[in-house]
């Protein structure tokens, strides 16, 4: 494994599989325990450096680090020196001087974690950078698929929605390709980036044509600010053409699952009865996120074998 996790492209098949396997070991080790805590990262410091609001990702990383017994510092941009104009570099050097072993970074600018990684000795984990990537989301999605379907190789995945602005989509396309899955991107042409034809994925503008063949349907959140920028004529038209409702869900094969990285716009890209159906993995994704982030922190920081860590 590399020192940092900046992009899903940093992971080859062996790395990715190791993370998923480690997450599974952690789940097994903790299953049924009253005290859900491992001593693995005792004495290590993990900083959650969040320049963008994201309660779910931050608490997931926070809990993951705490369950591994690391010391956790939450550094939110609001109300800190950052809002007083401190640069990313100075923030990085400050955290470095405090001895951060890992920095979990969420930032609205694509590539910010890459910059950070040049300035610090510790590991940098990309927790979402602009419209670039969100590698741990892709890992938890892959983990969820593997647990539900029992495999990743050859699985047919449809990723539906605002691919253009989605870091979740970018990381998933890369990681799922590494893991041998077949991805189809479904979106209106306005929400696909120029250059998407070079991605290891099929492209479709027609959700109804893709659904019957998909084993996984991953719905992307449509951000509020896209709705008034002529990417599509209206919320209703988007929903009619690209929303997953009960009628469309009925066209899916029996064992197919529905995923969403959250937070959802119920009634927009996903209907309530779909989100709450047995196909939906949305709540599982949250708990799987915890296991996968524990695995990532452990593998980047632990450096110890799984048995030493008391996981096995």
């Amino acid at each position, binding site marked *: 494994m590399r020192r940092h996790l900046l992009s899903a492209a940093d992971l080859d098949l062996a790395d990715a599989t190791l993370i998923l396997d480690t997450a599974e070991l952690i789940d097994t080790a903790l299953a049924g325990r009253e005290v859900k805590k491992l001593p693995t990262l005792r004495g290590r410091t993990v900083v959650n450096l969040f320049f963008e609001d994201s309660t779910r990702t931050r608490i997931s990383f926070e809990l993951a680090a705490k369950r591994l017994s690391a010391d956790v510092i939450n550094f939110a941009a609001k109300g800190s020196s950052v809002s007083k104009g401190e*640069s*990313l*570099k100075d923030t990085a050097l400050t955290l470095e001087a405090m001895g951060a072993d890992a920095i979990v970074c969420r*930032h*609205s*600018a*694509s*590539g*910010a974690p*890459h*910059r950070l990684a040049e300035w610090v000795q510790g590991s940098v984990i990309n927790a979402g*950078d*602009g*419209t*670039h*990537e969100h590698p741990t989301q892709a890992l938890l999605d892959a983990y969820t698929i593997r647990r539900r379907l029992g495999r990743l190789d050859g699985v047919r995945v449809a990723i539906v929605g605002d691919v253009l602005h989605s*870091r979740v989509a*970018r990381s998933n396309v890369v990681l799922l390709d590494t893991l041998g899955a077949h991805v189809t991107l479904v979106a209106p042409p306005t929400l696909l*980036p*120029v*250059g*998407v034809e*070079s*991605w290891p994925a099929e492209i479709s503008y027609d959700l109804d044509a893709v659904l019957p063949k998909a084993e996984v349907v991953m719905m992307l959140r449509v951000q509020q600010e896209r709705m008034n920028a002529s990417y599509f004529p209206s919320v209703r038209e988007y929903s009619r053409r690209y929303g997953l409702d009960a009628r469309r869900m009925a066209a899916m094969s029996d064992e197919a699952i529905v995923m969403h990285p959250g937070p959802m716009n119920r009634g927009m890209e996903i209907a309530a009865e779909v989100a709450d159906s047995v196909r939906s993995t949305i709540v599982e994704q949250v708990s799987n996120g915890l296991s996968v982030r524990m695995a990532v922190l452990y593998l980047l920081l632990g450096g110890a074998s799984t048995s030493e860590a008391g996981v096995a």
Partner: protein
Amino acid sequence: MTSAAWLIRRVRPYGEQAVDLLLRDGVIADAGHDLKAVGAQILDAGGLIALPGLVDLHTHLREPGREDAETVETGSRAAALGGYTAVHAMANTDPVADTAGVVEQVWRLGRDAGLVDVAPVGAVTVGLGGTRLAELGAMADSPARVRVFSDDGVCVADPALMRRALEYVKAFDGVIAQHAEEPRLTQNAQMHEGVLSARLGLAGWPSVAEEAIIARDVLLAAHVGSRLHVCHLSTRGSVAILARAKADGIPVTCEVTPHHLLLTDECVTGYDPLFKVNPPLRTAEDVDALRAGLAEGTIDAVATDHAPHAMEDKECEWAMARPGMLGLQQALSVAVEAMICTGLLDWRGLADRMSIRPARIGQLDDHGQPLETGRPANLTLIDPDARTVVTPAELASRARNTPYARRELPARVVATFLRGIPTVLDGKAQR
């Protein structure tokens, strides 16, 4: 002028047959073999190539306003070290060079520095605001004698205003230098739109945003019979539009930067804002088309778009960084790498694109003249065989944002003469 005479021995003008050049009283007083000149200082230039002093149509000197990034003096020094004897200073200073007062100040600062002739560019619109014409005539009539007008950094996007500007400057034979960028197509744009922007998740700056404005402006220039100059061409399509316009006899000229002749959007992969520039670095196919356009003369000039920025404006997140890169000191070397080493241009061709044509576009009569007796002694001497590794800390600019750090480049400027006076000798600035 009371300066000492200089006898330059065995130099090869344009890389051709070696001659001696005698510089006296600001002009080339004599050219020939085994010249003798009593009291003249002697410079043995065996192996060196002489070119007319380079002329830059596009420099940001940052003064007034951002003297922490560059001043007229430091920028002039970088220019002289790069082989330049004249530079055009862009108008996007603070305050903007949109009045006779500001252009005259910049012109005087240039004269005081005494390293290159600084020709201020006047803003087309008040405050670069794109709504009201600046007092172009007053700037033209000032001691700075402004002939090139540009809102560079911002496009004159309003077609009616662009038309008026093109028409108005005919009264004093001015030229509008357009920064071609359709603003609605480049909102929040961060890099060339293509395969890499899709992967890197950076908002795209599509080629069409440049080409659409160029096509429009070429048609406007033809309609009103005015001269148009297009700044920093960056796309293959732009070259094609300009080639067509020139074939149709439309009076349009254009420039390309050194970095667009050498670097591609692949440089952006690590998100280092040293490679953030506007227009953005494009693809290898664009680079090839720009080189070909420059070689065949569709593109008239290499212009640096030298854009110094303070460290904190580059040591940050990509999206927060200011666009632009240093250019003056390495422009010749980059042009040699892109055009001479590839056999696309010879030294005479390079002199045409880096001195003769830019001087003509900017109407600087003392510059871009042939290296012959009686002409102004504005020239630069180049060691074509030297190779230099670029070290940012050693650059003359106040800023350090060169995209060529640690890169080895060919050719080195050994000496530069401005009206017979050495501004650079043995690769060192003389003041």
